[in-house]
């Protein structure tokens, strides 16, 4: 095989992969818009009345009815809806009277801050615990990790959040309570990224940073525990299949330290599979954030959606669903793209 030909073939393969990926991504996206469109239509609340109020005259009602294109056939309504979504128009939020998109962009950084911190907790503890469980298969460290992650799977996150608040905030006073920071620190730090911990560091406000951290640590750990359970379990099963391989025996026979074999060689091969797991975990963290944010009064996407739900603010709910759905799709796509980058075997296949 000559070098240029292989190179060309690789590029062609890559292009084909990307095209296939984009195809399936856009199909999933279309599905998402279909579902949100259906949700918008089956909702029992009349979208016209939500805007004009119940006391509106007949003519006002009909004018808005036409403005919302409700007189058109359903496929046409969907087409109009799709065009609007692609232009980033999610309509106006009834609750805040701002465009939904700008609302979403305002609240999303808080959710991102929370879920990224949780992911860091989950990955930093989950992977080592999974490795230790795999190397001690069947013995007590394994049992503890397995049972601990089973507990994590079984806990309602909102209950765990309340118990955490009760113990670490109310009884022990180790952390700050609900919210992102104390009210007295409001508006000190200029908004750059929207993530207060990052913004306060950029502004050099140590005090704000530590206050925000103190607010963040409990919800992030609780959300992180749930992802830890999943990451540890998957790491364990991936590691077990690696440790059975002959190269492990060969490297040990060559005199490499068991520590090196496990943590460098075997774990190095597991990383590839873990990328997918971490991407999926992040998606589920965004979901867990809805409940966690409610418990901790964390002004992120979850709380925004929850409040919109009870204000019958359909545009906002659908906008939030779309945002999380798109992040989900992008994460799935990223894990597909990253896969061949970290695994040379996936790159040269075919």
């Amino acid at each position, binding site marked *: 095989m000559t070098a240029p030909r292989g190179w060309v073939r690789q590029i062609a393969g890559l292009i084909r992969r990307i095209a296939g990926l984009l195809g399936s991504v856009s199909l999933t996206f279309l*599905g998402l818009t279909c579902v949100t469109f259906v949700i918008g239509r089956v909702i029992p609340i009349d979208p016209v009345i939500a805007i004009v109020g119940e006391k509106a005259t007949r003519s006002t009602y009909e004018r808005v009815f036409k403005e919302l294109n409700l007189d058109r056939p359903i496929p046409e309504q969907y087409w109009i809806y799709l065009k609007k979504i692609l232009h980033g128009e999610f309509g106006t939020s009834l609750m805040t009277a701002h465009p939904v998109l700008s609302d979403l962009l305002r609240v999303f950084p808080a959710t991102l801050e929370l879920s990224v911190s949780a992911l860091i907790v989950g990955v930093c503890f989950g992977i080592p615990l999974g490795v230790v469980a795999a190397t001690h298969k069947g013995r007590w460290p394994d049992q503890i990790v397995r049972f601990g992650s089973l507990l994590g799977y*079984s806990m309602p996150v*909102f209950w765990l959040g*309340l118990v955490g608040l*009760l113990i670490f905030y109310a009884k022990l006073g180790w952390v700050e309570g609900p919210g992102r920071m104390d009210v007295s620190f409001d508006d000190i730090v200029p908004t750059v990224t929207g993530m207060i911990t990052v913004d306060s560091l950029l502004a050099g406000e140590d005090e704000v940073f530590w206050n925000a951290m103190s607010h963040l640590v409990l919800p992030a750990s609780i959300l992180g525990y749930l992802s830890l359970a999943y990451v540890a379990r998957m790491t364990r099963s991936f590691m077990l299949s690696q440790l059975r391989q002959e190269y492990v025996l060969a490297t040990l026979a060559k005199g490499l330290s068991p520590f090196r074999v496990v943590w460098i060689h075997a774990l190095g091969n597991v990383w590839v599979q873990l990328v997918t797991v971490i991407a999926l975990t992040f998606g589920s963290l*965004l979901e867990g954030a*809805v409940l966690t944010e409610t418990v901790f009064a964390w002004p992120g996407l979850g709380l925004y959606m929850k409040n919109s739900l009870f204000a019958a603010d359909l545009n906002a709910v659908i906008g939030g*669903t779309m945002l*999380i*759905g798109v992040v989900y799709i992008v994460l799935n796509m990223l894990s597909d793209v990253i896969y061949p980058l970290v695994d040379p075997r996936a790159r040269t296949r075919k």
Partner: protein
Amino acid sequence: MSTPLRVGAPTGWRGWLLDPAPASRNQARLGRWYRAWLAFHRNGLAMTGLVIVAALVLAAIFAPLLADRELAFHQVLEDRLQDFSWLHPFGTDELGRDIYARVVFGSRITLTIVGLVSIIVLPVGLGIGLPAGYFGGWIDSVLMRITDIFLAFPRLVLALAFAAALGPGIENAVIAISLTAWPPYARLARAETMTRRHAEFIEAAQLQGASSFRILLTQIVPLCLPSVIIRLTLDMAGIILTAAGLGFLGLGAQPPLPEWGAMVSTGRAVLLDQWWVATIPGTAIFIVSLGFNLLGDGLRDLSEARSG
């Protein structure tokens, strides 16, 4: 292979069940179940799970015997927010209702939700997965595309949006959860069907002129069911947590009903002073979902040990 003469072989009904040469099909079948039970019995965690799930079912059936219905639903405002006592083992809530009685009656709601979701999810999952795996071709592509689309959605958020669209309530929570829970079953049923599509007994049935529908229903469904049911048991915990989450957000069962998630939500207001109001129902959710997880894990270990 066992020898004909077995030293210390079990006698009586156990001997009949464990007979290495069963005389009838039913004896063989019961023997297989009995061996599976023996293996399951040794798994302490799985047995714990079974006990928890059995306790849930019994509590739901015999709720009126275990607790006073009057205490669960009747508001006694002068008895509100009481601490633990003999009359109120887990105290009372903000309207003076007995929390123990409410948790016991709440088991009925939890079990109803779980049952209804299974009744919806199994036929839908099988109905999409079986034809996809059996016919292949474009039917497979179309059905699996649809499944993938639903699989790519965030479950709780979609259930949330559905529940918001359909209005709060148990039935709508069940529909919302089911709509987001079926895709894994479709994929599982498809995979199971594909491995058996070209089996000889299927071809024999085809030669005898059985319709595709009949083959799917009588030949393939029974073979798919074990793995689907194990998967369902493992999913139960997730279903319970999602339902409780919807209840906590106010989108599931509505207030007078003792739904555990909604109870946690109302207890939040008095969390710092009367911690039991929110934490006791939450503990019930936790224990029950742990029970289903342990049971599902045990069943999965069993099926893996048998197949591999």
